């Protein structure tokens, strides 16, 4: 299909490998056919390739020495800089060099540099809890531009790092972004202000949320497994989170909300430290902080109290139950 597939190298550092494992859940087509269709030739991938040991370091050297063209570099996992900027928390196996040095050298050779997952993009979970390993992203440290490569970094094709954020990434966020890049259609205008592909972050997790009726009437869940809206009490930030999880769906039809647990905004820089327990909504004077970003607070409060007063009994009861107790009646029929 493609005369000249692009060479992709995939490296892993301070992360869990979950973005690769998620990517292996690609369907129709499966992962290898997706790569072929997109025009991606895998130079090396830690979980997929045959080459091990010295064969790998030879490939990396060949790229650095301009003997092999590197079109796309993907990093999965955060850049580990500690302790004291030595990078010793991750020395690349088989070499006596810190992984962060390899990442930097290879980034300078790549037409496109892609951070796969929130760790590689911004530091993510690896930078949580006081950040013991001084982890950061490729071109961000949390919300701040900079990171390993610096705020002014541009790849050979003059593009900043593409941040396919998510913890983990949806398989098709990765495969479709790669395919757009191969087509030559991917530019800075395809990225939002945190460098994320707009193809999936121009939407909110709230869009398509199956609990929208509960949200409208502020019929809130009180405990995990309740059916009601998870925003008021259980820490859900789906109304502010940029991702298409409830319209694209995961593993054949799921999403966090469809799994009946809150969205923790895993595509956002800094999601790992929300400043409160993940599954509890912080409140001031009984009103949740962190309301929808583009709605005046006074209006939200007014509408919320209005809709609470109008909540149908059915939603009130179902919101605090783990299965539907009252079914919507049919108009014109009485029981």
């Amino acid at each position, binding site marked *: 299909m493609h005369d000249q597939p692009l060479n992709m190298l995939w490296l892993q550092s301070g992360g869990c490998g*979950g973005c690769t*494992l998620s990517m292996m859940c690609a369907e129709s087509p499966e992962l290898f056919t997706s790569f072929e269709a997109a025009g991606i030739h895998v130079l090396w991938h830690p979980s997929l390739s045959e080459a091990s040991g010295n064969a790998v370091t030879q490939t990396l050297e060949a790229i650095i020495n301009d003997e092999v063209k590197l079109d796309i570099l993907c990093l999965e996992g955060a850049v580990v800089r500690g302790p004291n900027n030595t990078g010793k928390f991750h020395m690349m196996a088989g070499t006596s060099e810190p992984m962060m040095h390899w990442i930097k050298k290879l980034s300078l050779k790549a037409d496109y540099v892609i951070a796969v997952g929130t760790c590689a993009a911004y530091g993510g979970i690896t930078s949580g809890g006081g950040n*013991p390993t001084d982890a950061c992203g490729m071109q961000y440290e949390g919300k701040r531009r900079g990171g390993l490569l610096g705020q002014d970094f541009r790849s050979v094709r003059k593009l900043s790092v593409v941040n396919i954020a998510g913890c983990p990434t949806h398989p098709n966020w990765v495969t479709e972004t790669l395919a757009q890049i191969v087509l030559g259609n991917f530019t800075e205008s395809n990225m939002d202000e945190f460098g994320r592909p707009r193809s999936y972050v121009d939407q909110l997790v709230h869009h398509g949320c199956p609990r929208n009726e509960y949200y409208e009437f502020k019929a809130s869940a009180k405990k995990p497994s309740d059916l009601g809206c998870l925003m008021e009490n259980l820490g859900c930030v789906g109304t502010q989170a940029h991702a298409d999880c409830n319209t694209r769906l995961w593993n054949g039809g799921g999403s966090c909300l469809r799994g009946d647990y809150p969205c923790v905004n895993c595509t956002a820089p800094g999601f790992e430290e929300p400043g409160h327990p993940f599954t509890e909504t912080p409140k001031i004077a009984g009103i949740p902080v962190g309301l929808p970003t583009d709605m005046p607070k006074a209006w939200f409060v007014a509408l919320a109290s209005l809709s609470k007063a109008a909540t149908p009994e059915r939603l009130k009861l179902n919101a605090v139950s783990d299965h539907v107790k009252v079914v919507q009646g049919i108009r014109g029929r009485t029981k």
Partner: protein
Amino acid sequence: MSRRIVGPFNRVEGDLEVQLDIQHGKVADAWVVSPLYRGFEQMLHGKHPNDAMSYVPRICGICSVAQSVASAYALADAQGVQMPSNGELAVNLILANENLADHLTHFYMFFMPDFAREIYKNEPWHAVVAERFTAMKGSAARQMLPARAAFMHLMGILAGKWPHTLAIQPGGTTRGVKAEEQVRMLTTLYQFRCFLEDTLFGDSLENIANLSSSNELKSWLENDKHSNRDFGLFLSVADALQLHTMGRATDRFMSYGVYPTNGEPLFARGLWEEGHLARLDIDAIREDVSHSWMIKYGEPKHPFDGVTQPDPDMQDGYSWCKAPRLDGKVVEVGALARQLVNGHPLIQSLVTESGGNVRNRVIARLLELALVAIEMEAWIKAIRPNETFCNLVSMPDEAEGVGLMEAARGSLGHWLKIKHGRILNYQIIAPTTWNFAPRDLNEQPGALEQALIGATVRQGEITPVEVQHIVRSFDPCMVCTVH
């Protein structure tokens, strides 16, 4: 003595380096290095106990659910809450979904591609194995990947997504299952059964589960319907390369037990030592850091009192991995240990004949695919829609708890102390921490370090293929190992 440094080791989860002392074409000694440290135990200190449920799955993208389950069990122990029957069944199903997907991934993507290597091109079996299993090009992965992805639709229903779900809670699962979803899950599982029976085994799951001795397995392989499928292909290659003579470690095996229904595990807890089943004393676990890049505080500690403070310049250190020991001894964990401890007759017969080795580890994993897939059907049918999935109890301000379970790769334990409503200490021992541990105070090598001794290094080999078979036979997960 010069050490050969082998790495990066791929088709293991995470980063791994192995150092070898090679003499007369054999490995004389080995050191296993875990080169990546992230520090989850440090991160969790001071956090709200419930936040562990958001952090720990992210230790590992391949054993994500296993980490969630161990954490949920530890928190449940601290809270004194028990799961309702539905919660127990749903957790078992989510965990089994991950464990079986991992077994499949290991066999098709991580382990078998090594037999398609150029070095075997003159072997009579090479052509057919290369057609099936060459990395990224073989026909097998293109059948396995869609089957695995479809099987993981169970996650879409029960866990929202995989990896990194929050559906698993100390008191059960957040996600109620409706009657129509129960039927959908049975259909999904049936589709997976078809893949296993048609493509992997060429036989029914029940027949595989009932294989009861090495002789039965030999005669089973004589049938063409079996020998030309993927399991049969592996058994033939194993025979040709004598994989049962490679990678023997301590032959002391441990399992924490897993998949409870009404509190009774499907696979039992125990220890297999000197050819016999023995009681497992969890209190005899200690973590030794004498050869880790960790600051040492006196004697090896029980994980409740464990300390994790990294120092890359630690004298005698050569790995971020600690060295867990049971009563001072090295144990091996994984599917082989699990089935041995649970008394599966085929596995007991194989281990009695040839011990723990490359072939037997792989057979145990594939056997488990059959055993657990059969059980999953019963669990789905036992779910009672419209009844509760999650019990709730408030979190105490002071408590301690332990969560022990079996991940795909073996025994996983979380030990947790809560004080003033916050996590005071959180210690994790993962399966590959047991298998890929460094030496201890007594210079006793870890399980893989022992298993590598005697491995053949062919003329001119820089990354010896036999070493690769042995390493991958453990299905290591390095991101869990150090966490």
